[in-house]
Every structure is written in C-alpha cells, then in structure tokens.
C-alpha cells in the first residue's frame, strides 16, 4: 500500500518519467507507474501536455531561425574566401 501511495503522489518521479518517455521507451514497471499516477493527477496530466508542446515549440524555433534573415556581411565573406583561395594555392 505504501508503495502504491508513493507512486500516486510522487509528481517529481512522474514528471521524470514523462520526460524520459519522450526520448526512450520506458520499462514495463515505469510505464505502469506513470499510468497509475496520471490516472489520478490532473497537474501532471497538464504537465505532460505542456511538456510535449514545449518540445514542438523548441523544434519549431530552431527550424524557423534557420530561415531567418541573419546573414554574414559581404566583407567578412570576401575575406574568408580569400583565405580559402590562399590555402588552396599552398597545396
């Protein structure tokens, strides 16, 4: 009983398992523990949902920033290409 109680109330462990589950397969026991916990804990259900949304937001953020306008200035590029040409000349 005290073991079950621990599982039911331990949000720290539940959120740990929620994070782990997003990156790898949980063991059978972990999976059961998490399900029991989520069945009775609305806060961790919400955490689970928000955590997944955050993952998607982070991915999108990095994806979007690859499309944005920030560019190297032309002088820097010209210098860089000159260095490369110099390196090629030495070979």
């Amino acid at each position, binding site marked *: 009983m005290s073991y079950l109680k*621990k599982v039911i*109330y*331990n*949000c*720290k*462990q539940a*959120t*740990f398992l929620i*994070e*782990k589950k997003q*990156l*790898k397969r949980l063991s059978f026991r972990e999976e059961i523990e998490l399900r029991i916990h989520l069945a009775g804990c609305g*806060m*961790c259900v*919400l*955490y689970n949902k*928000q*955590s997944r*949304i*955050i*993952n998607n*937001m*982070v*991915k*999108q*953020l*990095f994806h979007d*920033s*690859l499309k*944005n306008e*920030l*560019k*190297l200035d032309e002088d*820097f*590029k010209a210098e*860089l*290409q000159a*260095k*490369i*040409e110099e*390196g*090629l000349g030495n*070979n």
Partner: protein
Amino acid sequence: MISETNVLNPHKWVATYADYLYMYAIVRINDEDLAKDLVQETFLAALERVDRFEGRSTERTWLTAILKNKIIDVYRKKSSGLAIAAANKATQEQDEFFDEGNGHWKPEYAPQPIAGMDEQDPLLKKELNKILQLCLQKLPALWNAVFTMKHIDDAATEHICTELHVTQANFWVIIHRAKVNLRACLQKNWN
C-alpha cells in the same frame, strides 16, 4: 541522382554555405562573434581535410558535420569544470519545484494552463516563442547543451554523455530539470 553533388569545390564554399553554417551555429550558441569564428574555423579545417573527403555525403553535410564538432567543443569548454558541479546541483535542487517529503508539486509551482499554448493566434504564439527563447538562454550552460543536442539535433544519449562528460543518470536528471525549469519559466513570464 548520381553523386554529382558529392564533389568538393572550395572556390564556391563561402558563397554557397557560409550563411547556412552561420545560422546553424548561431541558433545553437547564440553568440554572433563566436558563430563567425566557428564558420571560419570550419572552412579552414575542411580545407585541411579535403584529401580525406570520400564523397559519401554531400558537401553541405560534410561541412555541417565539421561545424557540429566545433560547436560541441564550445559546449564542452563552457561547461567544463562546472559540469560536475552543475550536475550535482541539479540533483540537489530538485526540491525547488517539489515537496521534499512526498514529491508532490509545491503549490506555487504547480502547472497551470498557459494561454497561448493551445491557441492558434499567431501573435500570441510569437510572444510565447520569444519568452521561450529567453527561458532557454537562462538555463545553465551544461543543461542547455544537453537539451539542445538531444531535442534539436536528436543526438544519441550515449554520444551526448561521452561528449559532455556526464553520466547516464545525470543525463536524465538534467533533461528532467531543464524541462521543469523551462515550463515554470514560461508560466511565470507569461501570465
């Protein structure tokens, strides 16, 4: 689709890839000068290794791989020495959000709905993204490196642990801590 692209042409490197590599670096280390240096180092290192290019990947993939290693070096430098301390701190500080006795959420940190997460309103989303960016920057260097490598680059856990010198156990603690922190930071700065 014969491997036409799998040939190196250093004369065109800067024109073709410099901006891409620059963005790639900047979203991962968030420092314009450092990103510039890394792009330069990448090209120069690539130049030295031209002979070893086997044509098994595209030019872009090959250059990106070299840059990736340079970024990991930066992560490592930023978190070296601090790594063990930070990881220990991560384990000890668990209780900021949770009650030490029973592991339950402390009332002030308990998850609440964050408006904007569910909404489709592009303005709200943009606002929330900005806050997320700030929250990411506030993470300790090692956590940020671990989090970024895992979530953005989808790197293998073993690879991250080896590169950044963290144990598997600490890896999971850091992943957990980073997310609980990010979520709390969003909630705190949004409402």
